């Protein structure tokens, strides 16, 4: 039997895949080997000069990468813990369960840029309501956006507020799909709520948890809008992340070739590190 005609049906999908995924990656690789910038706007070939510059003479990229790692890991851990707690809360039979489910999802439904503008207004050190309220309680103004350490935590607060509902949604869906039998068996054995959580709920939720954490890590590693609006990477470079730095190099300074080098390197690093993280999480959380 000749199955060749079946390949015809693959072409549309393949065409889309090449158009939106393969071509941009190949173009980025080619661009990364050029010196395209504002004064030489051409796809010339400069070999691996940009890569040498990145690995030998650009500490700012690596600083932004480690800062990003800190921010994304911290925010995702907090989102997971808070999201799990909220999901457990509305998983049980409580009053106004539906109301709470909707309320918890609201931050995720808002537009990140607009919400970040609102958060920036809240945290404005001299005009914002947060310091005003603290001042009424006798607390000195906190430098939410101008202290290099506190500014990182301000970014974390906004990110956690915005994206915990996503984690909540995934984990709640996971909880609702769990089989009832293990819980019945645990109840018959007289297990306490804590032991039920540790030995039944958490292990059963592990596959979903890993998926949720990885999805959020992928998203968090692209953090850009919050930083852009809230701090512009400042004070100094204290909250600058990899994607924001790549944006600066590419679209502010117009170093297109070098920005492509940064993007491609970043992509490779993220693929490798997220694969390792997924494996480690699987080992830690899923017991055979």
């Amino acid at each position, binding site marked *: 039997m000749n199955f060749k005609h079946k390949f015809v049906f693959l072409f549309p999908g393949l065409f889309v895949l090449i158009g939106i995924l393969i071509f941009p990656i190949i173009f980025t690789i080619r661009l990364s080997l050029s010196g395209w*910038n*504002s*004064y030489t706007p051409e796809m010339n070939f400069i070999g691996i000069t940009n890569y040498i510059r990145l690995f030998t003479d650009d500490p700012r990229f690596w600083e932004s990468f480690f800062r990003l790692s800190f921010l994304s890991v911290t925010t995702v851990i907090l989102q997971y813990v808070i999201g799990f707690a909220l999901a457990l809360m509305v998983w049980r039979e409580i009053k106004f369960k539906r109301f709470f489910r909707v309320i918890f999802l609201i931050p995720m439904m808002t537009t990140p840029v607009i919400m970040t503008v609102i958060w920036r207004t809240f945290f404005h*050190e001299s005009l914002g309501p947060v310091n005003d309220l603290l001042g009424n309680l006798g607390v000195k103004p906190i*430098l939410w*956006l*101008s202290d290099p350490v506190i500014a990182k935590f301000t970014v974390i607060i906004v990110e956690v507020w915005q994206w915990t509902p996503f984690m909540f949604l995934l984990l709640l869906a996971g909880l609702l799909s769990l089989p009832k039998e293990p819980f019945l068996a645990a109840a018959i054995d007289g297990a306490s709520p804590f032991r039920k959580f540790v030995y039944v709920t958490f292990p059963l939720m592990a596959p979903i948890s890993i998926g949720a954490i990885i999805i959020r890590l992928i998203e968090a590693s692209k953090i850009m809008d919050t930083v852009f609006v809230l701090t512009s990477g*400042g004070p*100094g470079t204290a909250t600058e992340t990899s994607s924001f730095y790549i944006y600066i190099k590419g679209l502010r*300074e117009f170093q297109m070739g070098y920005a492509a080098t940064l993007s491609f390197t970043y992509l490779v690093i993220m693929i490798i590190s997220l694969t390792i993280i997924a494996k480690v999480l699987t080992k830690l959380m899923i017991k055979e």
Partner: protein
Amino acid sequence: MKMKTIKTCVTALISALLVFSPVAYADKWSDQFPHIKTTGDIPGECSYESMSKKDYSGKTLKINTHAVPVMGEPTALHAEQFAKLTGAKVDVTHTPAGDLYAKAMVPFQAGQAPYDIVFGFSNFINDWRRYLEPVPKKYVEMKQMQDVTPSHIGVASWDGVMYQFPVDGDRHYLKYRKDVIDNPEYQKKYKADTGKELRVPQTWKEYGEMAAYFNDWDWDGDGEKEYGSAEVMKKDDLMYAAFYSRSAAYSKNPKTPGGFFFDLETMTPLINNPGFVEALTDWVAATKYVPPGGINFGLGDEIGSFGGGQTLFSFSWDDAFVAAMQPDSPINNKVGAAQLPGAMKVWNRKSNSWDEGFNQAPFFVWGWAVGVAKKSKEKEMAFDYLCFFANEANHQADIGIGRFGVNPFRNDDFKAEVWTQIGWDKDIAQSYVDTLAKMEESKNRVFPLRVPGTFEFNAALATAAAKALAGQLSPQAALDEAAKQWNDILNRVGKDNVRKAYSVGVAMEDNKL
């Protein structure tokens, strides 16, 4: 007798008609366009009357401009007026300041012209000029252009060719609270507490001392705390310009011509010499007397802070001053203007030592600039729009609105009457125009860096300065880092390319152009 009376009346009537006819003529347009209600239309090649005779029906003009309000609001307003007068359709796109460069450069480099008119900053000129249509001779020779100051013609031109249509003129100068600095009680108190005179600060050190003294207490009795200074310190929001303003007095030595940013001969970056380091050290100290969060102030915050009466001092573009002088401002007619503070020493890069003595250098920072894309299919309409934007009636109305970001660049703007007629006190108007005029007369001026890769140079400097302000690096280490990056950029762009472009700015600074 009766006949004589009739003759006299008729003569008076005719005289009155002749004298007031321009006003009557102007009223026709100011009724329709209240924006020019103070002056009415002012006759000229691009006046309302002249534009109403053009017919661009069925044509579309596309403009990319800054976000509202600074420059974005007047662009949109004049677009609407232009459309009404000529029948054209005008599409205005608003873009944040940081993206104006790329938004034009991407299509420029791709050989496209999605916008007929692109707004940006005057220091983009070297990167943009190959994609811009030179301003046609008929506009360059127009009466309204003849009134533009030579400095601003220079800023809008490259090698004698005008690429940017002058719509704005910019320089940095000092703004201060007159009701504090001129207050005899505060002068007495300041003298008693510090042993020094309270006066318009002559040096950056005095500026710092006064700002620190008047910081974090309610010195105007409004029940709210006030602070020393509002400055543009946010990394990606023009802070490099503020740093150059602070550095000029310490580093622009009239005895050592041949470059402020680089030594033109060797192309060695000068930004980490002791003059710049001293300025950055002062600036780091300034983080202690800005309002809470002041380290993140962009231009809009600075305008709002000083214009809203929150600080004693400020220095940057005119906008904060004009905002403070608007009738609805809490500090209307309580502010003064003066040249940027100087320094009691200036770095001499030839002798490698400080030259003692007072030095001051005005900074003709970049301003808003606008050009017409070479690939535009509507060049004539585009230049007509720009000419209309900057016509005398629009210009006079625009410069009186702080948030518009349109600042003086014509000789006529330096007359006090222009400002008293919009409600400014006479002595404030006079001090303002004197300040601007003195800057034009100065022979020790600094002009913005306008070389290939300007954005990279300024961004590298801003990042380094921001690190120092945030305490991540010492001033010397930060500027050494910036100088190293400037050398890297020079190597990438080519020293000769940069030198060639930089020599134009140096010639202006050395009064050779």
